[in-house]
């Protein structure tokens, strides 16, 4: 069989057409995701030697990252903030998703989902700035509370600290949490809830024994979708975080741009990715065990 024949035959197979279909995307991902990632990993094993980069392989950066307390602190704070954002977002998103799925007329559900996505029509940056306007010293919230006589002096714990970062990010990621939970709730066969009632469970226990376990895949998706990007967020902490609200991504940015130490920045980035991966895997494993125990 000649080569031309082989190619001709291959073009007709499902596998070949599959490869053809995914290759533009795959190429794009390879160039814009895999290549930069590989570069970062390579950089993390090099060192900055004043103005030039020393290309000898070393673990020196990793040693510094682990021993210098500032990096560990930032990483812990990032985990803490991101974890708080995740918990707050998912806890607030669940009732909304539940309401839309169970109490909204089916004909209006898409309208509700559409309304939920409206905040996304403005740019992320503008939304962060708006939170500054709302939370600021002379902001909307403080002037309202002062005007109503509820407080005597402006609240200061709501801007330029970790709280502000949590509030802003929780709002920004709310739809990302609502949608997967909504989809999971929509998939629940309503007769299962009736079956549970029929078998003696009340509304609350039906929720705990049937609705929640069946919504778990959506909750897991929501947790991962919120947790993974927020831990690497640097715009929000930069704009509303103040010095106490800075996160690991801000340090990575500083290393790359201000301190001109790309290898150290790369090392921190790699470590941050590893930690996010480990935390996510542990979370998924814990959830699996929870669901299996239900069986």
């Amino acid at each position, binding site marked *: 069989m000649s080569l031309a024949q082989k190619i001709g035959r291959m073009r007709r197979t499902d596998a070949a057409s599959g490869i053809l279909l995914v290759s533009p995307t795959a190429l794009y991902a390879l160039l814009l995701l895999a290549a930069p990632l590989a570069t970062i990993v390579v950089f993390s094993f090099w060192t900055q030697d004043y103005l030039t980069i020393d290309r000898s392989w070393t673990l020196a950066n990793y040693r510094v990252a682990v021993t210098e307390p500032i990096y560990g602190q930032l990483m812990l704070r990032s985990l803490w903030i991101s974890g708080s954002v995740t918990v707050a977002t998912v806890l607030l998103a669940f009732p909304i998703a539940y309401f839309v799925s169970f109490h909204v007329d089916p004909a209006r559900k898409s309208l509700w989902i559409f309304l939920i996505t409206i905040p996304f029509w403005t740019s992320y940056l503008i939304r962060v700035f708006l939170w500054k306007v709302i939370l600021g010293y002379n902001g909307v919230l403080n002037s309202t509370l002062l005007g109503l006589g509820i407080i005597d002096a402006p609240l200061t714990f709501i801007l330029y600290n970790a709280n502000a970062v949590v509030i802003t990010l929780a709002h920004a990621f709310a739809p990302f949490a609502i949608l997967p939970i909504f989809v999971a709730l929509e998939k629940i*066969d309503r*007769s*299962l809830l*009736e*079956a*549970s*009632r*029929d*078998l*003696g*469970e*009340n509304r609350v226990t039906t929720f705990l*024994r*049937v609705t929640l*376990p*069946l919504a778990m895949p959506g909750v897991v998706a929501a947790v991962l979708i919120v947790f993974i990007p927020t831990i690497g967020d640097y715009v929000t902490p930069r704009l509303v975080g103040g010095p106490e609200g800075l996160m690991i991504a801000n340090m990575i940015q500083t290393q790359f741009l201000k301190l001109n130490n790309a290898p150290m920045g790369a090392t921190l980035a790699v470590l941050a990715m590893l930690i996010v991966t480990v935390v996510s895997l542990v979370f998924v494993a814990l959830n699996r065990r929870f*669901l299996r125990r*239900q*069986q």
Partner: protein
Amino acid sequence: MTKPIIQLQDVQKYFGDYHALRGINAEIDEGEFFSLLGPSGCGKTTLLRVIAGFEDVSTGRVLIDGKPMEGVAPNRRPTNMVFQSYAIFPHLSVARNVGFGLRRAGLTKDELGRRVGEALEMVGLSGYGARAAHALSGGQRQRVALARALILKPKVLLLDEPLSALDKKLREQMQVELIKLQRQVGITFILVTHDQEEALVMSDRIAVMFDGQIAQMDDPEVLYRRPKTRRVADFIGVMNFLPAEVLFEAGEKIEIEIAGLGRAEISSDQAPRGGGDGATSVGFRPETLTILYDGQQATDREARAKVEEVVYYGDMTYYDVRLEGTDKTVRLSMRNVFGREVLPIGAEARIAWSPGALVLFR
């Protein structure tokens, strides 16, 4: 000896403007196998859900075991339901599904395991406890749903078209098993079905429903032989209708003239009042007609007809025959016996019939 376990007193149900149940009155006895039969949209499932507590009545009363059920949530009613979709919890194993309702009973782990094992054995699923719910076939899911409901020893078991998702063979097998199971546990079963054959096979009593009302409530044989309205007659089994005219009535006797069959005398219990849908007609079942072969004599009346269509079922043959002197065809069925030929299309046949098998609708 029997006392009503369920009493329905003028039950009405509206969904917005839609009048789904229009005054249902019925008493269902303890230990009875009761069926709600009707075409889709007749309100039979709504009625079942009213009994289960998933729907409130708009007006009227539902009493279970003598107690009014107004405001009583489904989880506090002595009823359990087998859902049409079976509603097997997909996140739980078979054993957890079956034991779902026993959590509140405060049983020890051993006790729970024993009860679940017994319930699974009762429905023929011993050893399936550890299986995942999604690894079950349709028939097995149905058995799990049954075990899950029966393990709670309800006073009434409600079955919402439980067999409609199964193939014919399995459905017939499950019909027999359900009857046996009902006799074994002695619990009142209320079955909702649109399949008249299923209702006839399984029930002690059947309520035929049309448009939110009970059209007739009787045991299967009475329902089949003496339907009260033409609509019920048409819904249950095959019924031939011929136009008829009442010539005169004298006490228990009614003299009628039937198109294609001539004059006949019937008794008044063959002629329920109402239900003729505005026209007078007689109805008779295919098996009440017999084709007479050479040398056979009719025991009662005889008519001549021509075979127009033959449908061969193996054990039975259905003939559509046109009665002499009319343009009406009627369907009759003959059991195929060894040595008897199936008549061809176009053949002339003598038909034996009997006025006693007629029902007059007027």
